[in-house]
């Protein structure tokens, strides 16, 4: 369940979490708090926008992510070390830490939901190995000549086990599961380097070519496609190239509304820094808290608010990439060009196989004046999909519109914090009565669409009315801002929740696809059914949770996002079982007209279907680019092809 759809942004903490009118106020407070949290990591505030600062500064580190990621992040789970779900002594769920809106809150219904949904029990724990066992890590096999030359450049590097292991994985279930179980690693990077700027990267790539060293670019580490896994057959020294210190906004051009940014910057820092100048990119993949700009480019990422701002390929104006053959870039920043196939599209989605994205010029927008959440309840999934289709047809989709199925709706409800006032309780009860009894919605059928509007106040309200009017024609009832917001909370805490599940014998993962409108319902039904059957056939003892949401709309189709989780007690090899089921689910997706991936990418997890997806000729075309750009396979992560 990790990935781009999976985490939370501190930015959201400011603007999205606290909705509408007082958003700028709470945003300010949140930003302040954030600065305190990351205070010791920040040397000083950099120059304001507009200043050009291209030369490397060795200590230029004002980002959230330190070189030693393990200092603030979990080594074997999602997110910050101080933030996690747990069941307290009373058996109630709590979210620790202070970073998030749910932090420090008690979630009274989560335990019931958890136990009933999975047949799990808070008394059956499956705890993780507490610390990394250095003996389980293969020793670094260094290319001494490379190390010598690297030392001469002054670029920082490390071959400590913790650093290497942290960069040996993304957030696939099997990767996290193995870390938790303390399994022996087959192959991890032999060293980690932290370039500070484009020129550092140029030097590293030159040295790698000179000494035949394998480079694997590492951005935010939120991959869910086994893209960061080291190929076990790789015999050369593997160097993980961590871009996290290349995190500056180099300049902002307010005339053209573009910003030139180092590609290692992570989403939350990019938004925070732009916000300071009154701008945003509007690119908010659910992983934006940790994922990096370079990673978005390399995987063709998609953001929650793409309806207003576009996906990464729409946002990018210029890309600079260091490859073994040299640096690729364009000569100008024209908004559109007819100069043969767009070379950006060789880079977008190349998944680290061609080179390292070092700098990106991307569009920026003024921060919207007004934001409003909303939600609509539909009697069933079919009605909801029909409504989203109509919204897409009329091209009036709000910044975000998502349709959660009944399972996810209930899941969202399980995350309701304790309500202090009797009155709130009473109102909730009344709402429920109205929807289920008065309107006759079946609580086990109803679904909810969550909405996020952005823009100037008047237009947001107008837009809101238009969408609610359409919804009404499909039997939808407006269900308030609160329900809407809760839907978005779910998507950013879900990855933290997976860690909680794994503490109690529950494994979980998410996957996504895109599919033409007319096949959405069939695909959702068939994939869920396939998962249920495969689980049964593979000896899963408990009913799995299969849930989906239509998470993006397009003119010609939609992006569908699945959650899949089950209680693995009684299974000898739960990860293997999980992988077989996911494999079957992907086959089912392809057979039902879905794509191999909408935004997660291919990595090594889905390579086997590339030929089927883009034809062998298509694979050949990509291969020939790879062969030209990187004949010695220096960028040898073996993703994609």
């Amino acid at each position, binding site marked *: 369940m990790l990935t781009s759809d999976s985490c939370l942004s501190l930015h959201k903490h400011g603007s999205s979490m606290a909705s509408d009118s007082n958003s700028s106020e709470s945003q300010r407070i949140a930003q302040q708090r954030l600065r305190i949290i990351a205070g010791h990591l920040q040397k000083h505030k950099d120059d304001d926008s507009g200043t050009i600062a291209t030369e490397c500064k060795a200590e230029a580190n004002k980002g959230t992510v330190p070189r030693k990621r393990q200092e603030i992040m979990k080594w074997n789970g999602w997110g910050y070390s101080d933030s996690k779900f747990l069941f307290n002594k009373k058996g109630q769920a709590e979210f620790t830490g202070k970073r998030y809106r749910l932090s420090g809150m008690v979630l009274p219904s989560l335990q019931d939901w958890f136990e009933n949904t999975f047949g799990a029990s808070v008394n059956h724990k499956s705890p993780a190995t507490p610390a990394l066992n250095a003996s389980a890590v293969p020793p670094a096999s260094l290319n001494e000549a490379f190390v010598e030359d690297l030392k001469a450049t002054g670029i920082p590097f490390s071959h400590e086990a913790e650093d290497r292991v942290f960069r040996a994985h993304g957030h696939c279930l099997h990767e996290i599961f193995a870390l938790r179980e303390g399994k022996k690693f087959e192959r991890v990077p032999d060293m980690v380097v932290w370039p500070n700027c484009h020129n550092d990267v140029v030097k590293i790539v030159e040295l790698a070519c000179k000494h035949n060293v394998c480079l694997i670019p590492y951005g935010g580490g939120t991959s869910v496609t086994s893209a960061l896994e080291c190929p076990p057959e790789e015999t050369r020294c593997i160097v993980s190239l961590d871009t996290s210190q290349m995190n500056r906004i180099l300049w902002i051009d307010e005339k053209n509304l573009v910003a030139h940014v180092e590609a290692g910057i992570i989403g939350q820092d990019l938004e925070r820094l732009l916000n300071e100048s009154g701008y945003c990119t509007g690119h908010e993949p659910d992983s934006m808290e940790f994922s990096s700009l370079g990673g978005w480019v390399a995987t063709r990422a998609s953001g929650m608010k793409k309806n207003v701002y576009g996906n990464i390929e729409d946002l990018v104006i210029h890309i600079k990439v260091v490859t073994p053959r040299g640096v690729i870039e364009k000569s100008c920043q024209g908004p559109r060009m007819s100069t043969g196939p767009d070379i950006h599209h060789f880079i977008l989605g190349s998944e680290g196989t061609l080179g390292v994205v070092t700098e990106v010029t991307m569009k920026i927008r003024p921060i919207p004046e007004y934001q409003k959440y909303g939600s609509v309840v539909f009697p069933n999934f079919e009605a909801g999909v029909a409504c989203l289709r109509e919204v897409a047809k009329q091209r009036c989709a709000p910044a975000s519109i998502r349709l959660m199925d009944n399972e996810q709706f209930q899941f969202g409800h399980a995350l309701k914090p304790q309500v202090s006032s009797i009155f709130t309780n009473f109102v909730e009860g009344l709402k429920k009565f109205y929807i289920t009894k008065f309107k006759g919605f079946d609580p086990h059928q109803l679904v909810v669409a969550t909405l996020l509007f952005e823009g100037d106040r008047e237009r947001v309200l107008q837009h809101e009315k238009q969408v609610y009017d359409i919804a009404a024609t499909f039997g939808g009832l407006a269900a308030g801002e609160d329900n809407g917001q809760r839907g978005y909370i779910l998507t950013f805490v879900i990855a933290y929740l997976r860690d909680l599940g794994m503490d109690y014998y529950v494994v979980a993962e998410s996957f996504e696809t895109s599919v033409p409108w*007319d*096949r959405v319902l*069939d*695909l959702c*039904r*068939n994939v869920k*059914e*396939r998962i249920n059957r495969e689980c049964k056939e593979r000896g899963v003892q408990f009913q799995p949770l299969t849930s989906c949401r239509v998470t993006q709309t397009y003119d010609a189709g939609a992006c569908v996002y699945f959650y899949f989780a089950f209680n693995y007690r009684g299974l000898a090899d739960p990860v293997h079982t999980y992988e077989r089921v996911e494999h079957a689910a992907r086959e089912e997706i*392809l*057979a*039902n*007209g879905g794509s191999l991936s909408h935004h997660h990418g291919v990595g090594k997890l889905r390579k086997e279907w590339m030929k*089927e997806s883009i034809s062998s000729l298509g694979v050949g075309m990509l291969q020939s680019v790879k062969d030209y750009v990187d004949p010695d396979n220096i960028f040898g992560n073996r993703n994609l092809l």
Partner: protein
Amino acid sequence: MSFLGHRSLMYKQGSSHSQDPMLKRDGFEDILEERRNSSDLKYALRCYAPVLYKGVTPCKANMLKNIVLQSDQLHYVINQVSQESGEAPDIIQEEASVILEEMAHRLQISTVRFFAFALSKAFKTLFQHVCVNEEGIQRLQQAIQEHPVVLLPSHRSYMDFLLMSYILYTYDLALPVIAAGMDFMGMKFVGEMLRMSGAFFIRRSFGGDKLYWAVFSEYVKTMLRNGFAPIEFFLEGTRSRTCKSLTPKLGLLNIVIEPFFKGEVFDVNLVPVSISYERILEESLYARELLGVPKPKESTSGLLKARRILSEDYGSIHVYFGQPVSVRSLAQGKVNRSTYNLFPRHIPRKPMEETQSFVNDTAYRIVRLQEDNMVLKPWVLMASLLLQNLEGLELSVLTEQTVWLRGLALSYAAFLDWPDHAPTAKVVSSSLALHRGLACVSGGRVSLVVGEPLGPVTPEEALFNRAVSVLSCASYRNQVLHVFLRPAMLAVAMHTAASSKKNEVYNCFSFLWDMFSNDFILCPGDIDFEEACYLLVKTGAVQMPQQDIVMTDIGQPTLSFFNGLLEPFLQGYQVVCRYLCEEASEGLTEKQYIPAVRSFAVKLILAGAFTSLSEMF
């Protein structure tokens, strides 16, 4: 010819047929027993609340029609037809609506209850037992809840679909909607009754009529996708007049499988149903029909005249509901569903080659599954023997040979309903008693009964009467053919082959396979040959040292019985070939062909050229 080497291996993989020693069949319950002990009226009026597919709410016939008329699929074709013909779409839409009106069922529970009552009475008079495998019913009930179900019964009698609905009603299962030929519509009152008990009517041929096809296929698919009711049709297309399974028709099967390929349903379950009659109501009617006496037109008055049959004993019926076959599992690895991704699903398209051959294989597989679970009575063995001895047999010899044949049939896993603990003589004599219209014992000899016409007869008339009785008898022998067919073809191949070399025998077998592929249900690939070898070796009739296939010391009776079994079929082809070589004129039309061959055969037989009569189509 590598397959020759690992014959048994291939056999195991490639076939789920009767010869599987592990094959387990369910036991039967007689549903008439309860009818004989309790009130039919009460039974007809009892509470009927079947479980439905994933709990869908039943759909009124009118709502169903609306869904069909408003479907994208139909609209597309309406616009297409309108553009081609220049007629306004409204008019075509109206036409479609008329077609649908003519086609659609109007299932009404009151009519079903009427049939439940009337059929209870009729069945009790006509039949001793109506036996059903209850485990099959349970499997069906399960399947109906999980997936859209298609019931595929064998088709030997008009009774079949009434019987099916009757059984499903009895077990409180969802009543099927049944594809019926338009012929029934001719029976004014009865046609409407059938419609109200779930039949929908399709024209026998509508080859080029796009609109008709669109309405029809959308109607069937709508019922299937929504799981409103199981769909029932006869793969064989029409009643088999010979009791041989007919080669399957693929049109409807294509229609019901397509929603799976298009992802509109998760799976479709095909349930083969084998309905075996100890005596078929239409027995002598069929023989005459085959000999060129036109089939009586379906009419209500005809039905009333047929009441006569109510006074006879037709033995028992066995209905076996086979294991539901999942189309999804069958198609695994054979059809790539993603090939449907690049074309809008509402636009009708000719199925791809891959799909066509899958549907064809599936159809054959289902018919073979039907055959496998057909219950055989001792009489079919006796009929097979009698037909090889048209001049008659000593009763004792017949008894002895029947016992021998029983052993052979059982070792080939025939589904034989041989009475437990009854002495063989008793079994033989009671079989003869039930079929006294076909065979008689006089002076210790058993021979076929030939109808005695009144007054003087021409040799042709005498021959006709003889042919009627031979053909009637053949319809029983045909019931056992699927058990013996493959080894019999091998026996003939061994007999014809120039040497005992495996290759040569195989080539002869292949020739027969090609020739008979319209007569019998043969499977593509080499499965049939593998199976034939396996069975003959298993029963000790044949040995296969190295590259040879040779008869064993004890193989003679088996092989000669098999040769005799297929002889009439071979002779049939010989007659046709001779006719085509010797007599056929240039402008022979299809219409003239069958009567011409028939009279040619009569000539030959009267001239004493042939001894056997049973394969004159």
